């Protein structure tokens, strides 16, 4: 699979504060890459470096197989982007905003603007001044501007900021369809896992400037499989018993046994073994961990939000 974005050892320092620390990003053709992290983790800084808006302190960025530093304009021809709060001209209408950018990009035809307005659902508001738009509408306009040049790579920084649930749903459906319909690769950042969960096939998690996870979303899902907790009167004895059976077991902070296994037969077998040793079993319960829990766990492990 061809790599669309390849960043190696990407680092950004501001006056000795390291905002982004030696991260390696890799986004393949046709991916929807969810770039996750809590607020202030370095998502926007990374995205700004990918777009050449700020210069990295160290590290290389290759997009479409070309060095960003030496082929900036060439690379940007294939990118549509929305960085943080949408940029817009408040004194112009939605239509005129798109027209201003259309002229800049030399995109032919007025139909393209109508298409875009339709895609982002602003057709009815096209003649209203953008300064009277709601935040959600401005956000949609920003996405429209990003799509205007028919990019091969779409980089969206928190595109669902300020959108209502219905709006989030719409944008999600829109983005989901892009790779299959137009062969667009999408990189989308968010501080909410649930938001990218339903559309991304690959995720990168950044925390305090460090990339702490990068893989297919299935890998992350595997971590969220169910676990069985068992509470007994003598956890240490129980632990050794289960270990003897050759099963993975761990003690939690609450002195509970924690088994990475949930097959019915096996659980029954374990319980039987414990009872034979005269242990009192208080609870056997299933703990389902959501992706959100995994995300929080990953980001707090690395010393993030406490």
């Amino acid at each position, binding site marked *: 699979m061809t790599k669309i974005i390849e960043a190696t050892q990407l680092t950004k320092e501001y006056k000795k504060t390291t905002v982004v620390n030696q991260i390696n990003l890799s986004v393949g053709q046709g991916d929807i890459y969810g770039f996750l992290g809590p607020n202030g983790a370095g998502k926007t800084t990374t995205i700004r470096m990918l777009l050449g808006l*700020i210069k990295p302190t160290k590290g290389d960025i290759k997009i479409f197989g070309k060095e960003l530093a030496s082929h900036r304009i060439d690379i940007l021809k294939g990118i549509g982007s929305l960085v943080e709060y949408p940029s817009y001209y408040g004194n*112009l209408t939605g239509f005129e905003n798109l027209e201003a950018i259309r002229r800049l*990009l030399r995109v032919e035809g007025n139909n393209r603007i109508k298409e875009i307005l339709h895609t982002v659902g602003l057709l009815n508001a096209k003649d209203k001044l953008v300064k009277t738009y709601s935040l959600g509408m401005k956000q949609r306009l920003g996405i429209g501007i990003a799509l205007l040049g028919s990019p091969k790579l779409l980089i969206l920084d928190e595109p669902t900021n300020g959108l209502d649930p219905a709006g989030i749903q719409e944008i999600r459906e829109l983005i989901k369809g892009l790779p299959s319909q137009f062969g667009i690769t999408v990189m989308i950042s968010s501080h909410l896992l649930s938001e990218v969960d339903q559309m991304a096939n690959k995720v990168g998690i950044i925390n305090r400037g460090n990339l702490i996870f990068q893989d297919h979303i299935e890998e992350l899902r595997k971590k969220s499989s169910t676990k069985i907790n068992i509470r007994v009167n003598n956890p240490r004895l129980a632990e050794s018993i289960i270990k003897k059976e050759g099963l993975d077991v761990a003690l939690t902070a609450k002195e509970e046994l924690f088994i990475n296994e949930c097959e019915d037969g096996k659980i029954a077998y374990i319980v039987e073994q414990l009872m034979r040793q005269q242990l009192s079993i208080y609870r056997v319960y299933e703990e389902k961990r959501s992706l959100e829990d995994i995300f929080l766990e990953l980001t707090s492990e690395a010393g993030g939000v406490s």
Partner: protein
Amino acid sequence: MNNVIASDKIKLKRTFIKPLSYLYPALILVIAFLVLSIQKDNLAVQYNNMWESMVVITHFIIIFMVPMAITILTSNLSNIEHQNNSWKLLFSLPIAKSTFYFSKVFNIIRLCLISGMILFVGFIVIGKTLSFTGEIPYMLLLKEALYPYLGALPIITFQLWLSIRFKNQAFPIAIGIFGAVCMFFLQMNKSTTLLFWAYPAMMTPIKQEIENNSLAEIVPNDDLGFFMLLSIVFGLIFMIIGVMSIHKQQAE
């Protein structure tokens, strides 16, 4: 380049920029008209050519108003992009950063030409209304309408550099207005006329000689070529600085 200019043209919609470049020449003309209609009899006794007197008197109003107007225009023009941090959008487009600077320079020069033409037409209207004698000196009036703008070239590129470089427009505006006020003093002394703020004042087709502390004959301005050269040189220097500055600018 054309695409950026075409795009910048749309952005002027519903802003104060275009009305301003029509309004301030009109204001100059109104003041000139009032001064001339009051002083008409007085001036007619002293000099024969009222057209030339008009140019000399109006010049003092022009040289004060033009740098002020340019300061406000450049600031407003840059503020279109600063206001909603559009730089980050523009800089992420496949367009050389310097193009945005050149487009703004082009835009201001175009607006200045429009203002200049308004002044030119206004001069003729004033002369006709106050029934000045003699043939209309078209070339002289055209020169008076456009030369101060040519002299303002360094101010244009200097102010544009500042207003793009600094997000807070209070700073470039303060400098611009300070410069416009200083010009009155700079143009009085021979050595300080070399400072670029004084060039619009020096760019007059004719000037009035002063002999024994009283106004004397109106003669052609011999220094015109020298100051024209200076203003083009300094205009280009500040343009190069402005281009280098926008090239290095990062969209934080």
